[in-house]
């Protein structure tokens, strides 16, 4: 590897990017050590893609400094490009070329590479080597896109929403590819709005909202912020019969209550005490449930806890 193997893989200081009247990135700081799989989490439009594209050298920051593997895009653009792999959100590779032709093309662009055959086997496209790109499934196309980055033998891999729109099986395949890459001691930076993806893959995650990182830590640490292990969510037929938040938090085992989309979400430590007490309270008030669900606390709940919005709301 040409770049020094000490120091962080990525360091961002005071990053700002504005588009006319919109501030896409509003003073973002981040340091990712080598060998880590880091996830940038947030709704669409939070500034994840802008941030990652500035790191890839595809976009210019208005303010702040970005160092990739200790280098800056201003001073060593080609050295950075040779050392990183990227997977963009919506690249469409040439449909008329075959899998092997596409890989050989990308292979030829890098100074330091991995053998095409080896990468082809790693992404399990060996059988499709002579198939046209246009005929591949969504998952196969995405694996090929990742292979196009892997042939450059990258030290640092940026993946922007790599599994959006893929079926569950393709997502699993992609996850194992990323885990394999990570197991070689390389660095991965991934953006996603799938919380399960971040929990599964990432050593640390940063939750991004309105161009800032509003929470940073391991998935376990962030979920720990909730001070709870379970979440109960319910809706009522008649919103007027909804108990006040104070009444809800007074229930045994409930630590917090908040409104989301006209429904209520409760942070619960002891689910077997909280649920019967909630049902009794609702019955006393003559309220009728439309639905009631419980789940273990996830990063999604952390996002709701921090912003009062669901990730999918944007």
């Amino acid at each position, binding site marked *: 590897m040409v770049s020094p193997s000490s120091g962080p893989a990525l360091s961002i200081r005071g990053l700002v990017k504005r588009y006319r009247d919109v501030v896409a990135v509003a003073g973002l700081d981040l340091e990712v050590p080598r060998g880590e799989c880091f996830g940038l989490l947030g709704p669409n439009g939070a500034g994840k893609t802008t941030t990652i594209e500035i790191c*890839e*050298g*595809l976009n210019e920051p208005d303010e702040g400094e970005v160092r990739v593997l200790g280098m800056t895009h201003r001073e060593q653009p*080609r050295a950075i*490009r*040779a050392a*990183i792999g*990227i997977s*963009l959100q*919506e*690249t*469409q*590779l*040439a449909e*008329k*070329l075959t899998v092997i*032709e596409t890989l*050989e*093309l*990308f*292979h*030829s*662009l*890098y*100074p*330091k*590479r*991995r*053998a095409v055959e*080896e990468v082809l086997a790693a992404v399990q496209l060996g059988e499709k080597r002579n198939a046209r790109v246009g005929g591949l499934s969504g998952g196969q196309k995405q694996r090929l896109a990742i292979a*196009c980055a892997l042939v*450059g*033998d990258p030290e640092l891999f940026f993946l922007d929403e790599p599994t959006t729109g893929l079926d569950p099986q393709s997502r699993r395949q992609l996850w194992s590819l990323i885990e394999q890459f990570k197991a070689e001691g390389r660095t991965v930076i991934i953006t996603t709005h799938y919380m399960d993806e971040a929990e599964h893959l990432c050593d640390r995650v940063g939750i991004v909202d309105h161009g800032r990182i509003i929470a940073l830590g391991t998935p376990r640490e962030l979920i720990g912020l909730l001070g709870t292990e379970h979440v109960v969510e319910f809706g009522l037929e008649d919103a007027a019969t909804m108990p006040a938040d104070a009444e809800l938090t007074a229930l045994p085992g409930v630590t917090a209550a908040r409104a989301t989309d006209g429904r209520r979400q409760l942070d619960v430590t002891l689910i077997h005490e909280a649920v019967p007490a909630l049902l009794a309270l609702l019955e006393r008030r003559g309220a009728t449930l439309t639905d009631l669900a419980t789940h273990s606390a996830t990063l999604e709940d952390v996002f709701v806890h921090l912003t009062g919005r669901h990730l999918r709301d944007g």
Partner: protein
Amino acid sequence: MADGSAPRRWRDRALVQLTLARYREFYREPEAVFWTFIFPLIMAGALGIAFRSRPPEVVKIGVIERAGSAATIEGLRQSTQIDLRTFQDDSTAARELRTGKVALVVVPEPSGTVEYRFDDTRAEGASARRLADDALQRAAGRTDLVATTDALVREPGSRYIDFLIPGLLGMNLMASSMWGIGFTVVDQRRKKLLKRFVATPMRRLDYLGAFVLSRLSLLAIEVGFLVGMGMLVFGVPFRGSLATLTVVALLGSMAFSGMGLLVAARPKTIEAASGLMNLTMLPMWVLSGVFFSSGNFPDAMQPFIKLLPLTAANDALRATMLEGAGLASLGHELAVLAAWLVITLGLALKIFRWQ
């Protein structure tokens, strides 16, 4: 694991791989192959038939048949260049003349004089009058004072198809260079593939160079095919040297490639690029002497027309193919093409939108 230390085979160079990709994407697109190779040939065939060399001109002339017209009709029949039709009344004759079915109506008067009715602004009208008058005067006993004979020279090189083939070749060079580059660049920009390439250590010169190289390899086939078919099917002469043709075709193709790159430098959609393409090419199809000589336009426009790249390409191709002109006499045309290449390429590189 990493094979970076192994010496690079020629096939593993970025320029070669990018060129191969261009080439593969071209021949795997049947439409592109059709428009580049088959379409110009069909066009040449259709226009060749429409404007084929006719047997010696025969002029259709009408005559009004009435008492005392027999001598006149007999006199007109003597000429082999006249296709004579007789009319019984004035109104039929007038209608046939008006609609161009006959070029001239001959009206024998009872007094023995003859009246010619024709439209003197039509070329056919005037020549029909001359032919008819000639035939009648001879039949009446006129003798020519100077003895003349006709020696006929019908040579390939002066027919319409001979004019057309180099023009179609020039037009094809322009269309395939501009579309081939412009369409692909904009399509790759739209699909974010250009952005993906920019994020690799690819040299931008390699990316653009690949277009040039793939264009050149296709150019050889394209020019060879059209010139060859022109010679074989239509008997179009090829009097110049292959080297001159190569230089003209190369420089022309490069100039049009520069224009294609310039047109494709900014647009993000195929629609926007198509509009710009047509805006650029359409005036040249009309002005630059593809289907008819650009000399038909007023003198005031000539300096401007001479500066168009397609005019320069067509003039140079015609001079080479039909007159056997060498490079030395094509200085003006080659200079025009070179200037277009330098200016468009320079501008394109300056304003090119890589993402």
